[in-house]
């Protein structure tokens, strides 16, 4: 019997070098580069806008900022932001809630896949905006139509990612579960579901991005509120500063929700695989 010291089996975690830090403590070098990069872009924006354009064609950052403050004070901005965010989140969450279970079933049960795969493969090439007019005719111009359009966008991305996830499960995992006494149902719950979770979460992150794009297009065509409406309507008045407000808000909102989503994954689901 050979004596084994665990220390001789070096763990990969031990080998990881500590992240490079500055004397400032918690501020990492990456954070500083990140900040400098943002400031750099704003400076560049200012230089280009003031050098080559009139403010009404390319508003400089300070003008956008003051317009933004006016819109904040009047409550106009928050109204557009909150309505867009509401549409995105409800469509995104409902769509994910439908698509993840559907993808798991389609990935695991061949007959379910055989039945629904033709529809998935057909409709995933039809962009949601192609449906906008029929949907508005059927469901009216209210919130239902916009949320439905986002559900539609979300479903295909999450569904296909989930199916890919199921097909990527190592057969040895399911075999191991079977010989450890798992019934097919238990193997589904205790192996297929957790093994697919990273793919579901990745699909949801991708779908979130598409939801932003979709809501803006939908609001441009059929809405009287929301960031898409703000951007499109400002065009009529040549209010480029308001258009820029809309653009900045969309980017900031997308970035924030994605960061928040990533935080939730790292906080509660890190063991289900690294998501980047």
């Amino acid at each position, binding site marked *: 019997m050979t004596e084994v010291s665990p220390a001789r089996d070096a763990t990969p975690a031990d080998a990881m070098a500590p992240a490079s830090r500055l004397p400032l403590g918690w501020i990492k070098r990456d954070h500083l580069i990140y900040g400098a990069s943002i400031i750099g872009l704003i400076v560049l924006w200012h230089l280009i806008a003031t050098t080559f354009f009139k403010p009404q064609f390319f508003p400089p950052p300070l003008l956008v900022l003051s317009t933004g403050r006016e819109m904040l004070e009047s409550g106009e901005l928050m109204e557009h932001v909150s309505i867009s965010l509401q549409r995105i989140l409800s469509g995104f969450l409902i769509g994910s809630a439908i698509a993840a279970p559907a993808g798991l079933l389609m990935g695991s049960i061949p007959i379910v896949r055989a039945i629904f795969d033709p529809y998935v493969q057909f409709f995933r090439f039809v962009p949601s905006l192609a449906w906008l007019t029929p949907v508005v005719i059927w469901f009216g111009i209210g919130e239902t139509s916009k949320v439905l359009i986002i559900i539609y966008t979300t479903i295909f991305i999450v569904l296909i990612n989930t199916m890919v996830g199921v097909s990527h499960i190592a057969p040895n*995992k399911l075999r191991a579960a079977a010989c450890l006494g798992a019934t097919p149902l238990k193997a589904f719950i205790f192996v297929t579901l957790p093994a697919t979770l990273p793919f579901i979460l990745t699909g949801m992150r991708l779908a979130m991005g598409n939801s932003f794009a979709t809501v803006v297009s939908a609001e441009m065509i059929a809405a009287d509120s929301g960031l898409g409406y703000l951007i499109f309507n400002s065009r009529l008045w040549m209010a480029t500063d308001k258009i820029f407000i809309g653009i900045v808000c969309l980017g900031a909102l997308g970035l924030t929700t994605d960061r928040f989503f990533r935080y939730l994954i790292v906080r509660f689901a890190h063991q289900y695989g690294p998501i980047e």
Partner: protein
Amino acid sequence: MAEEFLVARDVSYRYAARRGVEAVSVLQRFSVSLTEGEFFCLLGPSGCGKTTVLNLMAGFLEPVSGVLTLAGRPIRGPGIDRTVVFQGDDALFNWLRTIDNVAFGLRMQGMSKERRHVVAGEYLRLVHLDGQENKYPGELSGGMKQRVQIARVLASDPKVLLMDEPFGALDAQTRGRIQSELVDIWHKTGKTIVFITHDITEAVLLADRIGVMTKGPESRLDAIIPVNLPRPRRRSSPGFGEIWERIDALIENEEA
């Protein structure tokens, strides 16, 4: 001669034809008989169908003809009396901590969390992984992962351990250590072990008997070589080299 325990009789297996690929007959009337508590190594040239034999014993595959029995009962489908240690580490559940990987089989049986953690902890001690309970598989080395697999199958208290080249991917030093640990565990638990390898040295170090398979396709058992060397064995043990040479000659004959 002790009673027959794990038996394959005239087992044939064929992979079905696919478009552009003819049906391949992997095993042709393969027979072997193991006694309870035996350490049996299955050795053969690569592609000879060793893993197919193991998959049939595990119940992952069904034979085209012939029967497999365990303690007189025919083998139908996977069961907790025959658990498998796989070659790759992809058989571990990477979202579960070490302790919960080992306790997985007990969880399937409906054992309470406290009790199964106690049992799993004992098996982790048996494979010298105490202190690693709360790590995830991704944080363990290759040798440690295979130890987790061994603890996981033992925790379900199976009758037979089916091991498919479990140490094939480990470095030589780790492999040597874990081999002697396995013999130690086998002594303590008295399990019947079917161990697949293509490494003659490994087979001679571990086995009571070594089954040498013929080259595929249509493989069967070529010869069974008993290894009557006292344990613990070393490469330098008297008689080791002779058995090694004999098996090597058998396999070379096959590959020629």
